[in-house]
C-alpha cells in the first residue's frame, strides 16, 4: 500500500462524503479500497469479476456506483478516477441493482455454497449472496454452463454448471500467466469456458498452474486435489511459506486441517510472485505426507542392509565414522555436500561442521549439477 499522501497524487474524488486523493491511472474502486485499507474502514463496494492483478474488465457490474453528472451508475472497477468526481457508493438504488444482479446470477447456477477447499476466491459469490440475501429463488430459468466431467485431469475440476461467466479464469491465464490456454466460446447466455476444439486441458496450452482455479469466485474451477480432503474434519488453517521448488521463491499458503496437509494456495501478496504459481508449487506438495518418507534413522548392519534404529545410535555412528576417518586419514579426508533445497540453517551448520570441526574448506553444495 503506497502512502496516499505521496507526491504521485494527482487529484481527489469525493466518495460518500469523504475526500480521497488518487494517483495517476487509479480506478474509483482502487482509490476507495486503498483508503479503506489505511483508514481501517474497509471499502464495501462488492465485486465479482474483479481481480486486482488483472486489467479492469467491467463484466459483473456489481461494483457500480453513482457518479454525479452521469445518467447511469458507473463500474467503479473500470472507471479511472478524475479530479472532482463525486461518488455515492451504496445508495438504495445501487444496492437494489446489486441484489437483483446477485439473484440473477444465483439463478443460473446449481448451487451457491461450495467447499472452501475449492480455491482461494471460491467463497466470493457465496459471501455476497449471504450479504445481499440473494437466495430468493427469483428469476428462475435455464441454467448456464456445462460441466466437463469427462476431463480426467487430476488437478482442476471443471464444474462449469457453477460458472457465472466472469472470465477471471480466462483473463488470469492470459494476463497473469501468459499461457492463453482457455477462452470464451460462444456468446450471451451460452458462453462457455473452453480450450481449443473443446478438448481436455492436458491437450491444450494449459500448464496446470492453477491460477484459474484460485481466481474463480464460485468454485466452478476447483482444486480437485484439495477437494479429496473435503471429508477430513477440522477448520482449514493457512501457513505462509515459500515454495520448495525452483529459485523464484514464490510465496504460498499451505492449507492444513488438523495435522493433514490438504492443499496449497498462492499468496496474493507474495513479494516474488504476486499470487502466481506453477504446477509444481500449486499441486506437487503431497510428497510431504507420503508413505515412503524416511521416518526413522537407518544404519547399515552386519548383513549389509539398512535397518531402522534410534536417533542416539544413528547419530553416534554417524559421528564416529567422521572421527575415525579423521584419525586414520587426516582431517582432509572428511567432506560434506550441502543441499540447495534445504534452508540456510542446514547449509550453515554443515559448513560450520566442516570448518570448525575439521578446519578445512571441504564443503560444497549441489549447484554444480
Amino acid at each position: 500500500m503506497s502512502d496516499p499522501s505521496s507526491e504521485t497524487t494527482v487529484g481527489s474524488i469525493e466518495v460518500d462524503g469523504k475526500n480521497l486523493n488518487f494517483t495517476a491511472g487509479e480506478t474509483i474502486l482502487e482509490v476507495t479500497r486503498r483508503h479503506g485499507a489505511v483508514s481501517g474502514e474497509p471499502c464495501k463496494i462488492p465485486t465479482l469479476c474483479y481481480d486486482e492483478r488483472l486489467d479492469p474488465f467491467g463484466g459483473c457490474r456489481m461494483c457500480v456506483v453513482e457518479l454525479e453528472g452521469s445518467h447511469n451508475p458507473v463500474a467503479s472497477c473500470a472507471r479511472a478516477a478524475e479530479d472532482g468526481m463525486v461518488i455515492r457508493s451504496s445508495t438504495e438504488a445501487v444496492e437494489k441493482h446489486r441484489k437483483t444482479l446477485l439473484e440473477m446470477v444465483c439463478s443460473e447456477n446449481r448451487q451457491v455454497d461450495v467447499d472452501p477447499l475449492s480455491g482461494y476466491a471460491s467463497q466470493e459469490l457465496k459471501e455476497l449472496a449471504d450479504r445481499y440475501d440473494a437466495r430468493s429463488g427469483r428469476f428462475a430459468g435455464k441454467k448456464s454452463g456445462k460441466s466437463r466431467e469427462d476431463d480426467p485431469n487430476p488437478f482442476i475440476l471443471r464444474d462449469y454448471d457453477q460458472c457465472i461467466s466472469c472470465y477471471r479464469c480466462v483473463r488470469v491465464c492470459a494476463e497473469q500467466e501468459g499461457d492463453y490456454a482457455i477462452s470464451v466460446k460462444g456468446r450471451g447466455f451460452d458462453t462457455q469456458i473452453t480450450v481449443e476444439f473443446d478438448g481436455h486441458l492436458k491437450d491444450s496450452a494449459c500448464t496446470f498452474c492453477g491460477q484459474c482455479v484460485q481466481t474463480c469466485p464460485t468454485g466452478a474451477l476447483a482444486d480437485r486435489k484439495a477437494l479429496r480432503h473435503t471429508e477430513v474434519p477440522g477448520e482449514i488453517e493457512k501457513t505462509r511459506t515459500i515454495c520448495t521448488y525452483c529459485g523464484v521463491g514464490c510465496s504460498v499458503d499451505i492449507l492444513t486441517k488438523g495435522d493433514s496437509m490438504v492443499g496449497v494456495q498462492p499468496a496474493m501478496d507474495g513479494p516474488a510472485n504476486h499470487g502466481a504459481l506453477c504446477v509444481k508449487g500449486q499441486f506437487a506438495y503431497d510428497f510431504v505426507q507420503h508413505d515412503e518418507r524416511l521416518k526413522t534413522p537407518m544404519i547399515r548392519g552386519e548383513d549389509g542392509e539398512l535397518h531402522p534404529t534410534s536417533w542416539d545410535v544413528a547419530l553416534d555412528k554417524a559421528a564416529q565414522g567422521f572421527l575415525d576417518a579423521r584419525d586414520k586419514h587426516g582431517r582432509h579426508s572428511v567432506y560434506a555436500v550441502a543441499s540447495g533445497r534445504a534452508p540456510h540453517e542446514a547449509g550453515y551448520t554443515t559448513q560450520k561442521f566442516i570448518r570448525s570441526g575439521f578446519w578445512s574448506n571441504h564443503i560444497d553444495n549441489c549447484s554444480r549439477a
Partner: protein
Amino acid sequence: MPLPTDQDLVTDWKSRPAPLLPLLHAFNDRDGYLSDEALRAVSQGLRIPLADLFGTVTFYHHFSRFPPGTNAPRVCTGQVCRFAGGLELLETMRKDGATPMPCAGRCDEPVPVLTGRSVQVGVTVGEFESRPSPLPVANPGGLEECVFAAIRNPGNDTLEGYRRAGGYSGYEGALGSDPENLLTVITDSGLAGRGGAGFPTGVKWRAVREALNPRPGDDTRAGPKSVVCNADEGEPGCFKDRVLMDHDPHAVLEGMALAGYAAGAEIGFIYLRYEYPETADILDRAITEAENAGLLGENILGSGFSFRIHVRRGAGAYICGEEGSLLNSLEGKHPFPRERPPFPVTHGFENRPTVVNNVETLASAAAIARRGAEWYRGLGAGDLAGTKIISLSGDIMRPGNYEVPFGFPLQTLLNDWAGGPRPGRHIQAVTMAGISGGFLAKEDLDVTLDEPSVRSKGSMLGAGGIMVFDDSRDMLEVAHSCMEFFAHESCGKCFPCRIGTQRLTERLAGAAGPGVLAGWSDEVEDIGSVMKATSACGLGMAAPLITESLMRYFPEQVAAHVEATNS
C-alpha cells in the same frame, strides 16, 4: 487455378492491416467452413493463441466449423421476414441444411436467403432472385434531400456518375485548404452521428485531430490514426446503409477521406456486415476507381495527404456494430465491447486515436463539404438541423428508405408517404431505432421524427429503423422475437444483459417465470431496470425497452399471456 494452400492464404494476409477477419474469410471462401487445420494455420501465422482464436471464431454466427458451412442456405427470420413467410421458408429448406439468421437488412424486400457469397430474395423455393438493393422511391413530399439527392441518377455508383453530380468536389476543395476549415464546416452544420448515438460529428473529428498521436518509441501504440466506417448495420429493421453503399459508394469513400483529412488519419476501414456480400464487391470496385483516379493513396492530388481504405467483412454479430466491439473485432480480438472511457477518439483501432462513424454520417459529410453548413442546417424542420434516413418496413403499403427532415411527423411518413397500413388493418404498434427503441403505439404515434420528441415517449429514434405491426399481429410474439434477438446477440460480457436477455426471453415465451401477473411484472421490471442502469453497452441498456413498452401499451395482452403460461 489450383486452390491456394493454407500457407498461401496466411502469407497473403499476414502483413496487411487488420488481417484476422479477412484471413478467416479466405479460408471460409476456400473450404466453406473453418477446419481445425485452418485455425491452427491462422493461429501460427498471425500468432494468435489457438484457444483465443477458437473462442473468437465461435463468437461469430456465420463462421461454421463444419461442412457444409457457408454453402448451406441461411434464411432470414427477422421480425419482418418471419411474418412475410420466413419461418415457413426455413422449414421447407431445412432439408437443404438451411438455418435461420437474424434480420439480414433486407426488410424492404423479404425474405433474403444467404448462400455462400450471394443473397437472393423471395418467399418460394425456386423463385428466388438476386436483385440490387431497391432504390428509395422519389421523395413523396418533394422535400430537398441530402444523401439521397443524387442516388437515383443512373450510373451514380460509378466514379464518373458520382462526379457528374459534383462528387469529390468538396474533397478536392478541402484538400486545398486547412483542415481547420473543414472541421468548422462540419461542426457548424450540426451533423450528428446517424448510427444511433447522435454524437456531434465535428466534435468527434476534432477530438481525434487533437488527440496525441503516439510516435514510435513513445509506446506500443505508435502508428497512424484511423477512420472506421461503421457499416455493420445489424439493427433489425435497418437497411439504409446498404442502399447508400450500393448506389452511392463514392459518397461513403469521400466522407471517409474527408474525415481522414480533418482528423489527421491515414488509414480507413469499412467494417461491413457479413450479410451484404455484394456490397463488398461494390465498395472494392469503387475504392479501385478512386485509387486509380488519385483520390485515395499516397500524397493525394499533391496535397501531401495520404489515405487508404480497406473493406473488412464481419461474420455475423450484431454487437460488432457497437464501436468498441467493432474495434476489437477489427483487431482480431474477442469482440466484447470496451469499457468507456477511454473512447475511440483517443484509444481506438490498435489503441490509437480513431474516428468511428456510421455510413450515413459519412455520406452526409461528403454532401456538407460540397454544399456548406448553412445549406445542411436548413434542411431540418424548424431549429433542427439536417435529415435522417428512415428504413420503414413491415405491415405498411410502401416499405423502403425515406429521407426525412428532422422533426417530420411520424404519422405523415406512415400514412401519406408510405401508403398506410394494409387495407382493412390499422397500425397496432411500430418499433423505433430498429428494435432498440422498443415500441410506440396508440397516441404516442403522434411523435415527430427527432430525438427530443421520440425520447419524450421513453423511446429513441436511433439509426432510424421503423417496423410496423398491424392489428393482426400478436404483440407478445413480436416482443418475444425481439428479445430473442437480443439474447442471441448479447455478447456475454456483462451480467445484467447476458442473464437479463435470457430471462426476459423465457418470460416472453412463457417458458419460465412466475405465473401470477404481479410476480411476473416485478421480475420483468427489476430485470429491466438493472439492465438499463448497469449494462456495459447499449445493447443491454436498450433491450428492456421492449418489455417496458409492451407492458405500457399492451397490458391486457401481457395479462393474458401470463394467465396462459400459468395454466
